[in-house]
């Protein structure tokens, strides 16, 4: 027999979340966004380093991917939060960071750092594939017009590669929204930590984890809509095969997509 679920609690957590919860939700989104931006930037730098003429840069880029894709994210989070300051012998990650307008908890900084650096290793592969997908003739044409490497990358190659990079980037961010839950382990008060604390006070795991799962669905669902809109705008500039907005939406909403004939 199913254990009795206190639906009132679930209802309450979903429709009448308290102020503390919203702060936690904000922290989740905030960490995800900053870590993702950091991942994209690191991934771009590493992808460009990979094609460098200077071998130590290529080597570093390879080592970076090897380490951060090859070890568990949870280990990286713990290592950065507990280990980095000790290892370096000075305080890279302070207990709290005062930035004038607002201050940041050291655990949040460490969490963002770990998620961002880890994400960069995956983004490198995505960006590399995007750049590699562009015909060699594009770089040659740009060079023949007197463009230097940096300008050609910025104006010719990357804008085209972006079309290839953005769909998997969207998936990465979907992942990131959920993966932020790991940083509760170093004491960041984000959405999962909020659920966890309510659970340990009440011993009602089903109610609180169900409710927090719902909220993760809301975040990833909203992101799915945004992603669909971005991809549609990209496709609009292209010829022929683009999907309609409706088709994009239904593909983003996978369960609904199953019922739509394409």
């Amino acid at each position: 027999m199913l254990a009795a679920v206190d639906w009132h609690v679930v209802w309450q957590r979903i429709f009448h979340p308290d102020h503390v919860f919203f702060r936690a939700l904000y922290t989740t989104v905030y960490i995800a966004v900053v870590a993702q931006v950091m991942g994209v930037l690191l991934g771009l730098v590493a992808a460009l380093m990979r094609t460098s003429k200077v071998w130590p840069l290529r080597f570093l880029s390879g080592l970076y991917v090897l380490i951060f894709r090859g070890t568990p994210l949870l280990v990286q989070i713990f290592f950065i939060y507990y280990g980095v300051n000790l290892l370096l012998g000075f305080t890279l990650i302070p207990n709290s960071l005062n930035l004038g307008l607002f201050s940041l908890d050291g655990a949040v900084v460490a969490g963002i750092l770990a998620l961002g650096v880890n994400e960069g290793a995956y983004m490198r592969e995505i960006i590399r594939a995007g750049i590699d997908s562009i015909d060699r003739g594009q770089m040659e044409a740009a060079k023949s017009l007197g463009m230097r490497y940096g300008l050609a990358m910025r104006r010719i190659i990357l804008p085209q590669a972006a079309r290839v990079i953005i769909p998997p980037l969207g998936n990465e961010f979907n992942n990131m929204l959920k993966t932020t839950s790991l940083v509760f382990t170093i004491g960041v008060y984000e959405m999962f930590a909020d659920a966890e604390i309510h659970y340990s006070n009440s011993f009602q795991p089903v109610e609180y984890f169900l409710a927090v799962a719902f909220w993760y669905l809301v975040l990833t669902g909203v992101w799915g809509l945004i992603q669909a809109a971005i991809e549609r705008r990209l496709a609009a500039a292209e010829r022929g095969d683009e999907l309609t907005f409706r088709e994009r939406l239904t593909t983003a909403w996978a369960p609904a997509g199953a019922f739509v004939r394409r």
Partner: protein
Amino acid sequence: MTDVVMEAVDVHKRFGRLEVLQGVSLAVTKGETLCIIGASGSGKTTFIRCINHLEKIDGGRITVNGHLIGYREEDGKLREDSEKSIARQRTQIGMVFQRFNLFPHKTAMENVTEAPVHVLGVPTDQAREQALALLRRVGLADKCDTYPGKLSGGQQQRVAIARALAMRPALMLFDEPTSALDPEVTGEVLSVMEELAREGMTMIVVTHEMGFAKVAADRVVMMDGGVIIEEGTPEHFFEAPEHERTKQFLSKIL
């Protein structure tokens, strides 16, 4: 100095163990149209790609307007030039590719204005004006806002010619400009090129179009096995080719 625009002296190029160019020497004077013919693998495409340093040469030297391309001389030795100065040299040399290589994310107009604005620093409205004149010249003034994907092959290649001309190059290189085109549209590209030749542009054209060579070329060279085996006027090639390889080759393409 005479009016030599491009001079190649004993150019060598290797791809691994394969020596693609085995000592090519050639000079092109101002206003001249030179056609390079030859079977595939003869090194003709590699040679013109060396002229704007898309391929590094392994021996010899190439100069355009008296400037050494891709290298600078230090104590009698050649060292590869900086990226910056190679890029500057390339602004003098226009190139038209077999597969057009237009920028697909930019309209015809933007393809033409891209380099003048972002490389030479020409003000945008001035660049647009110039681009419009060039697109009109290649017969595509009505396609300014069209993306390459919506243009036919012949139209794309004409935009590519306008794009190269927008840099006001001293020399234009054409790498088999009609080989990727349907037969019925090669004419529109060739007539633009003939027009250019008439106007006195200095051009080096790798091509199989002997009709074009007949009308527009001042001189034709035949390459085989990485060297120039025969050189002469178009008439010479039509009437009395000397070399056995040339006769064979011409009998196949004419």
